[in-house]
């Protein structure tokens, strides 16, 4: 795995149209980004489409990356994740879960949760998430990791959508306060 500084260098080269740098950037980040979008989309074909679009966008907007504002991997993962969320929100009327291909995703190998591998940012965030009530913790994490809509969360927590809306908002404001954002 490349260091953040190396990724920043590669994105800078990509911004100048360096295709070799782009290929290295892809090689270093594709599995992480694919893991993130596959978890949300749960279908290999959709995840592949989203990853393609995301990397084309990364190629086109590398010049806009600001290392003072975002870490390179978060910037790239956000592009991919935003695209994945857009896709699931637009497909919301068809239930992705029931597609048979969704099951194949189980081959996924979760990264070890070794504490020494967590960054300080992650520890701090988890500390704040941990201050929420247990149900709200699940709510926030299911929303982030699985890309669930308010309607899906309402189903899971057997609560009206408007209640979920309120929970989500309050949870995010609590996290904000805890992080000092």
């Amino acid at each position, binding site marked *: 795995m490349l260091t953040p500084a190396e990724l920043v260098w590669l994105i800078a080269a990509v911004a100048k149209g360096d295709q070799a740098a782009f290929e290295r950037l892809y090689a270093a980040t594709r599995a992480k980004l694919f893991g993130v979008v596959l*978890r949300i989309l749960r279908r290999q074909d959709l995840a592949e489409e989203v990853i393609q679009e995301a990397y084309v966008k990364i190629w086109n907007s590398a010049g806009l990356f600001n290392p003072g504002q975002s870490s390179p991997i978060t*910037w790239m993962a956000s592009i991919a994740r935003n695209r994945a969320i857009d896709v699931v929100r637009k497909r919301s009327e068809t239930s992705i879960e029931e597609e048979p291909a969704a099951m194949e995703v189980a081959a*996924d190998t979760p990264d070890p949760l070794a504490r020494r591998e967590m960054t300080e940012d992650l520890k701090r965030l988890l500390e704040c998430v941990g201050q929420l009530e247990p149900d709200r913790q699940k709510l926030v994490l299911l929303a*982030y*990791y699985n890309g669930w809509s308010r309607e899906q969360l309402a189903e*899971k927590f*057997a609560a009206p959508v408007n209640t979920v809306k309120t929970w989500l908002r309050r949870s995010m*404001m609590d996290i904000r306060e805890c992080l000092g954002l």
Partner: protein
Amino acid sequence: MMAYSEDHIALAAEYVLGTLDAGERAQVDTMMSVDKNFTAMVLAWEQKLGALNQMVGSVEPRAEVWEKIRAAIGQSEQQAPIVLPQPELEPFAPVAEAAPVVADTSNVIRLAANARRWRTIATVTSAIAAALVVMIGVGVSRPDLLPGGVRPASKTQVAEVKPAPAPRPSAQYVAVLQKDGGGPAFILTVDEATRNFTVRKVGASAEPGSSFELWLISDKLPKPRSLGVIGNGDFTSRPLLTGYDADIVKSATYAVTVEQSGGSPDGNPHSTPIFAGKLIETVPPAR
């Protein structure tokens, strides 16, 4: 950033969390394209919540994916597509500053120095990590393996708790007209029901002696159609889109050219489009 209302802050946070619906997401995209500070707030949330991605397992995509990406960027160089909506951001800061290297080093030092503090929060974190293992490991594709407490509700329950979809006002479409990769210059809003459109000027002003003219470009029409000169005020509203099919209106590219004062005399554009964009669907808040 302090000037934003709690509504805006929550909107940015929920955009990043991913729980907004398609219409709200389109609104946030539009807000980001016209408001640098709002964009900064969204990026700050992405940075904070993005730490959670560390816990997500890596999955190798198939080799064909790269082939398709490579083919697509080859094409994009030749065609120079309009990328939109694009957040208005600072250009790439010089790499020589190497800010992330510094940040990274301090991170390592802090990590060592804070070992004691870390031990005190370890209990809390472990509990969360355990919840994460459940959700990441099996929560996605094997709901049957989850303990009852985190298993999704059954479909029967679902039907009972799902409220009827709220009636929505007519759809609104928004296009951000901008230079390739540059900031937005005009925001075009189209009301689906009335086909009225409004152009809001957010950037450029026409040079004296010239006018900005708006065009509708569609592969279903033989040539660009003028939608008229954009006035000097902040807003220009017209009902002109009533003459076009809904499909053409939704799929067309909207472009702005520089014409002589008062607009093109012969109905044809006389410059290449300097700002262009396509409509995205958005829905006004029902509140």
